[in-house]
């Protein structure tokens, strides 16, 4: 039995005994999860544990085989930036609004303040080919924000970047979320990234994905990756992953 409910504003995004299969393969098995509003929930797990499936279920790109998902309007950010090479940075972000029926000129105008707020104003007219990997990912994030939805679904947003750019972008994202809190479901296989960004970490088992650990990250922000409390939490998450 599959049911889908549009949640009233007060109810948060949640999974109830959600199972998803692909043929004989079970990707997710009986996931129970409820997200706290305006907090970052990180889902970590080994490759192939159904993390991306989880996001696509929330985004409405897939339907569960069993169980129920209470969905909230969500903006999905895939691992690859998927910027259109024929549009400049502003046009790429504005695409989010055009998809909602906003005319192009108006969409571009509404994207401008966001570029200014996130320090990308000088890159508005630059085409993706001339942007670095980190900049491209920032533009992709603005495209996600511009959809104006209360929930953000981030699918390994920095997975394709080198370590230095990654650390840089992590701090940038933490800053962006501190300024504009959203309900975030962040999928990653990088435990450090999870501890750095999240308020709560959910660990999934190898396929079929089940929740094997779920704990709060109660560290003050901005976080330092070298703080003892940080490394301790990281060790705990890694232990749960084994």
């Amino acid at each position, binding site marked *: 039995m599959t049911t889908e409910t549009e949640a009233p504003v007060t109810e948060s995004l949640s999974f109830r005994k959600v199972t998803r299969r692909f043929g004989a393969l079970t990707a997710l098995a009986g996931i129970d999860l409820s997200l706290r509003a305006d907090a970052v929930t990180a889902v970590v797990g080994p490759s192939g544990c159904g993390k991306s499936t989880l996001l696509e279920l929330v985004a409405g*790109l897939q339907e569960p085989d069993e169980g129920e998902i209470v969905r909230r309007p969500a*903006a999905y950010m895939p691992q690859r930036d*998927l910027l259109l*090479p024929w549009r400049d940075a502003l046009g790429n972000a504005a695409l989010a609004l055009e998809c*909602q029926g906003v005319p192009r000129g108006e969409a571009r105008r509404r994207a401008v303040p966001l570029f200014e707020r996130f320090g990308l104003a000088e890159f508005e007219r630059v085409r993706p080919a001339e942007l670095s990997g980190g900049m491209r990912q920032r533009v992709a994030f603005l495209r996600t924000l511009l959809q104006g939805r209360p929930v953000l679904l981030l699918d390994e947003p920095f997975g394709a970047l080198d370590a230095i750019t990654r650390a840089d972008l992590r701090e940038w994202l933490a800053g962006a979320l501190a300024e504009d809190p959203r309900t975030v479901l962040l999928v990653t296989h990088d435990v450090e990234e999870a501890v750095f960004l999240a308020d709560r970490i959910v660990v999934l088992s190898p396929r079929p994905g089940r929740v094997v650990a779920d704990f709060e990250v109660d560290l003050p922000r901005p976080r330092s990756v070298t703080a003892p409390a940080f490394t301790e939490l990281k060790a705990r998450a890694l232990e749960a992953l084994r």
Partner: protein
Amino acid sequence: MTRIALAIALLCGFILVWQGIASLDTVDDLTLASPVETWDALREDWSLLMDNARVTLVEVVLGLALSVMAGVLFAVAMHLVRPLRDAAYPLLVGSQAIPIVVLAPLFILAFGYGIGPKLAIVALICFFPITVNLLDGLRSAPPELLKLMRSMGASRLRTLRSVELPSALPSLFSGLKIAATVSVIGAVFAEWAGADEGLGRLVLLGNNQLQTPRVYAGIVILTLMAVGLFALTALAERIAVPWNRKDALQ
């Protein structure tokens, strides 16, 4: 720059070899006109050749335009409607298998000596490369991007306009380049089947009247026409697809 110099050198070499073979005693002047004879014919018959070339060029350009319109319409429709694609694909391939040489006289018989049947034949010969390439191009957008568009709530037409059509442009131009070159051959076939003017007809007449240099002069102009159309298409591609191909979505 070196590329252009090399191309010119190769062309000169080709003309020299051509002249050499044509000057051999064993080669009949009626089968092979030398470059010099061809050049003389070009100069002597210039206005005659140009008048007829204009007719052929109009047939080619209008036929191509017709073909582009029909091709884009068909490819987009087939892309959007899956059953139509499955049903129409064999017909599309069949359109290219039709022996134009056989079909052309029937067209003339049915529709007369006017420009109509010529446009139809040029359009028919160009239709396949344009439609098939565009159809492939429309499918070249990465599936993740289509998924992202769906997650952003994009309508089918929005995805077509913002993602699929722009990503199909390089393929469309590949098809157009092929079409540009075969369109001239189509026009010649059409004129051979029945026409009272045009370069194809002039070449056919020249052949019958043993005016070999004039035939060669006509061939040179027809070739230049095809090369020119190809170059124009390539130029249009550079303007319409300014983003780097290496940076394409794959």
